[in-house]
């Protein structure tokens, strides 16, 4: 195919790149190999979404984790050494968590991994951690499939079925609901998982789910669905989605004259919910891991310290990652060494760990057995209604 009689045009050895590009290449090349890690410390890798679409969640989470590690180091660290928290950002992009996990394992040689924030990101990293036999603890990913990956994968928050169950149970027992409607965010795995759990509990206990309506994250107009919902007159509407859409749904529902209460999950947890929904938020309920208004002194101490350091109140993610980081460090301490297998066993043996999000025990499925809270929004403030323990 190519000509046999090719011309040779060697006019000196000129590189095809301008000089400045070569310099830049050199600098980057060198830099990417200068990753320093100090030898001795106990290293924990934390991965979350610090930039990108989910950055506000990521920032909360890492602030909670950093606060925990600072407190532990101030008290002398673990195993006599300070803990080094290596933080990496997955940019809210798919595929990054796998790269970061590999980096933690082979480059930084961490003793354990804290993360990721979302279920889909964790699903990327967990198989790698399992294969490398490095313990991984996620403080906030709620999909049940995660801990099924292997015995090195743990979770310190409750799982979607639990959330869905307590939402349904609350509606049945406290709100005496007979007929409910569920609005599912079909784009979010979290919402779909909760919907399934709610439906299951409701039908098992004799009440009826009239209909399920769907919407997608990113939608801003729900009047079409709400108009139909209004006709159906449910006793309660389940809204297991994120606060971004929930706020608008609450607003538009009240504007259309829907008066029944809404019940949501921890996806509602954000000050933006009340800001956007205004008065429409009042009178609704949601489950959460944690309430900043909880009078428990440990919770209040955490809230004060967090507020002093970061100038905002901690949200559920900050609290979860605070507990997650502390739980992980405590497991390292109980293991008595940086041996991965021992840390894994220590994690599996966690019982009655006192966290700000409740008393945590790791069960035989490596999920957390702990209490949740039901909050009611009154006058723009979430107030604690009750604590639910499984």
């Amino acid at each position, binding site marked *: *195919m190519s000509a046999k009689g090719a011309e040779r045009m060697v006019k000196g050895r000129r590189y095809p*790149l301008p000089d400045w590009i070569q310099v830049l290449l050199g600098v980057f090349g060198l830099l990417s190999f200068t990753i320093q890690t100090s030898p001795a410390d106990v290293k924990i890798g934390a991965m979350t979404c610090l930039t990108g679409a989910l950055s506000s969640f990521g920032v909360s989470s890492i602030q909670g984790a950093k606060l925990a590690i600072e407190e532990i180091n101030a008290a002398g660290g673990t195993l006599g050494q300070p803990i080094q928290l290596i933080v990496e950002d997955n940019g809210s992009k798919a595929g990054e968590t796998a790269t970061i996990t590999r980096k933690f394992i082979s480059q930084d040689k961490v003793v354990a991994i804290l993360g990721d924030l979302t279920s889909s990101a964790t699903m990327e990293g967990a198989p790698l951690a399992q294969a490398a036999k490095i313990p991984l603890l996620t403080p906030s990913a709620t999909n049940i499939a995660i801990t099924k990956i292997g015995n090195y994968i743990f979770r310190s928050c409750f799982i979607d079925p639990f959330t869905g169950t307590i939402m349904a149970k609350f509606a049945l027992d406290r709100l005496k609901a007979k007929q409910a409607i569920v609005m599912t965010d079909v784009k979010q795995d979290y919402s779909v998982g909760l919907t399934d759990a709610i439906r299951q509990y409701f039908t098992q206990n004799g009440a009826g789910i009239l209909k399920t309506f769907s919407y997608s994250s990113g939608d801003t107009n729900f009047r079409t669905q709400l108009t139909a919902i209004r006709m159906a007159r449910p006793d309660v509407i389940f809204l297991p989605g994120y606060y971004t859409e929930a706020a608008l749904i609450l607003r538009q529902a009240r504007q259309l004259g829907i008066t029944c209460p809404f019940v949501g999950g921890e996806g509602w947890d954000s000050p933006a919910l009340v800001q956007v929904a205004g008065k429409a938020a009042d009178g609704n309920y949601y489950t959460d891991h944690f309430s900043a208004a909880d009078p428990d002194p440990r919770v209040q101490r955490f809230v004060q310290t967090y507020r002093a350091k970061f100038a905002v109140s901690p949200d559920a993610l900050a609290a979860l990652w605070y507990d997650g980081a502390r739980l992980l460090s405590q497991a390292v301490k109980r293991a008595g060494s940086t041996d991965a297998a021992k840390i894994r066993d220590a994690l599996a043996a966690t019982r009655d760990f006192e966290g700000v999000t409740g008393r945590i025990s790791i069960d035989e499925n490596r999920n957390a057995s702990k209490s949740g809270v039901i909050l009611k929004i009154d006058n723009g403030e979430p107030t604690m209604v009750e604590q639910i323990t499984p």
Partner: protein
Amino acid sequence: MSRSLLSLTFALLICASISFFGENFIASNFAYYYDILISIGVNIILATSLNLVNGYTGQFSLGHAGFMAIGAYASASWSNHLDPVIFGITGGSGNPIATNAAMFVSMFFAGILAAIAGFAVGVPSLRLKGDYLAIVTLGFGEIIRVAILNTDFLGASRGLSVAGTYTNLFWTFGSVVLCAYVVLSLVHSTYGRGFLTVRDDEVAAEAMGINTTKYKVVAFVVASFFAGVAGALYAHFKAFITPEGFNFFRSVDVVVIVILGGMGSTIGVAVAAVLLTILPEALRALAHTQFVPQAYQGLLENRLILYSLLLIVLMLTRPQGLFGDGTAFKKWFGRSRVN
């Protein structure tokens, strides 16, 4: 055997040997760099295939991630459901023949399916020009993504776990070599003349009796095939795929590589792919050193801000990309491939 075919076989053999001797060593001890290497391979395939459409044929496609998605999900479903059949034939999943056969079949299926999709999308859309084509391909990319999001057996929003991480250096760089071979062969044939003609002046081409639609569709289908292959490699490496990973921004990532490399230069685009795959990791390392003041770290980590500025600056100052149309490379390698 012609010289280029010989080079192809030789290159494939090299890949196979590196993989055979070095694979386990690299994968276990340098997992992070291994990850970067595989990502480089995948990006090179994506970029060189897109370059065929955007660069050589001058058709602006913004939906490449959609075909990658089809490839990824096709190969994932294939592996998840049909691997047991293959293992039945090869006698268990332990031996390398089994895993490699599974990978090959899976990749092939992915490429074919993506190529079919490319044909289906290309035939109606390629009548359009410039901006319209860009938006329509963007639209198709989104439609594909939304369709996957709404399909339960593909995992929908939960994502899909992929059985079998078969991707290794051989398959990745073997595919890179194959893709480069196919693209360069096409370009240096009458098809290549056709592509360039369509790019330079479509109306004149039509007037000369050249079936411009045929050339456009050929470029599009070949590009989609390799995008599908890249998707399969990606799926079997990351072991978990979500529709969000194949959105418009992924397409933009590939487009930036093609533009940086210089549309119309395969080698330039490959080098740009290497650069832009390493860049985020280098930035990550940079963020950990103390060179950058805290306030600007977020800016560094925010890849898209840098990319967008890069796009604007490139278009304003050096639209031919870093390497233009590759003539500089020709000088360096000291050989002209003009017949």
